[in-house]
């Protein structure tokens, strides 16, 4: 079975980008690719949430990032304690603070494994690069699981505050 493009959502000043159909047992892996995610509000996080009928599924996750300023004033690799979750129903940040400048955006991808399983938790991981609000490059790596044995049938992407522009594509694999 191929990597099939299932849905393309193009957001223009939207509060969220929701994928509410076609996440089922057809595929064992769903890949979401983010292009040119530009928030309306400066310094906000790009985030995601899953639904088993309603959004707000319990998650435990890890987060780490590397950053480097255009001014060369700072660069580092580290764990991001403020962006992980421990049995929380809050949305999962996929990034730190994305800039809202005219040429600033984020891009990356999220892998969601076997969301229709009713036996196991649902693992996911993401990788994203962003143009930070304070003019830095940020490479963010998030992973974790939806701690539920119910099927996850919908995924929502949004900013931590405000609207955003961008394109998100959902692919199904095997």
């Amino acid at each position, binding site marked *: 079975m*191929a990597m099939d493009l299932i849905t393309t959502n193009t957001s223009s000043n939207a509060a969220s980008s929701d994928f509410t159909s076609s996440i089922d047992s057809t595929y064992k892996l769903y890949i979401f690719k983010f292009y040119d995610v530009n928030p309306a509000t400066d310094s906000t996080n790009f985030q995601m949430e899953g639904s088993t009928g309603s959004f707000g599924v319990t998650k435990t996750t890890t987060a780490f990032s590397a950053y480097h300023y*255009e001014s060369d004033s700072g660069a580092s690799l580290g764990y991001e304690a403020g962006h992980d979750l421990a049995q929380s129903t809050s949305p999962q940040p996929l990034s730190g603070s994305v800039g809202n400048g005219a040429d*600033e955006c984020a891009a*990356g991808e999220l892998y969601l494994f076997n969301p229709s399983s009713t036996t196991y938790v649902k693992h996911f991981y993401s990788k994203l690069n962003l143009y930070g609000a304070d003019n830095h490059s940020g490479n963010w790596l998030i992973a974790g699981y939806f701690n539920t044995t119910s099927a996850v049938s919908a995924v929502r992407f949004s900013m931590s505050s405000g609207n955003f522009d961008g394109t998100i594509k959902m692919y199904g694999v095997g």
Partner: protein
Amino acid sequence: MPLGAHKAALFGVAGVSTDTVVLLSTQTASDSASLSFTSGIDSTYGEYIFKFYDVNPATDNEEFTFQVNADGQTGFNETITSTHFWAYQLEDDSTRGMNYNVGQDQAQGTAYQQLAYQVGAGSDESLVGELHLFNPSNTTYVKHFYSKVNCSYETSYPASTNQFAAGYINTTSAIDEISFKMSSGNFDGTIKMWGVK
């Protein structure tokens, strides 16, 4: 479970092509100074993935790098801000760890971006990996990229290094050409370019 085109996307099986993930070009270096992809990067695809196979430098302890040209430009010297980190483990188990690599990143630099640092040139040493370039034909935003490479460390310190570069090409012009080379000397290897719709 057959993986089909996704297997192609993830592992680079030659000759596999679908409407979603398309193998656009394969280039093979044989004691070459560089490999460049100067056609096929356009608005057809929202993402381009470059896969590296068996990249073996002629000179030990050099870096595997890339740069791009904006539309109409030459010289492979676009402005990049980037990060680089790695994890490593020596074959003799004497040293392991992970850290940020200050010398391998760029802050508004125009140099070739390092994807792999201190690559071994031994007869059985090489690197493999991939580079994702997002929406290079966009003329509104910067162009993000990230890479993951595993490589043999310099010959005098046999080790496995897992290296991660990421950043953006800080231009709103379309990117339509890309070049790969070692920081010094020639190399052998194969690089494939895929388009993702």
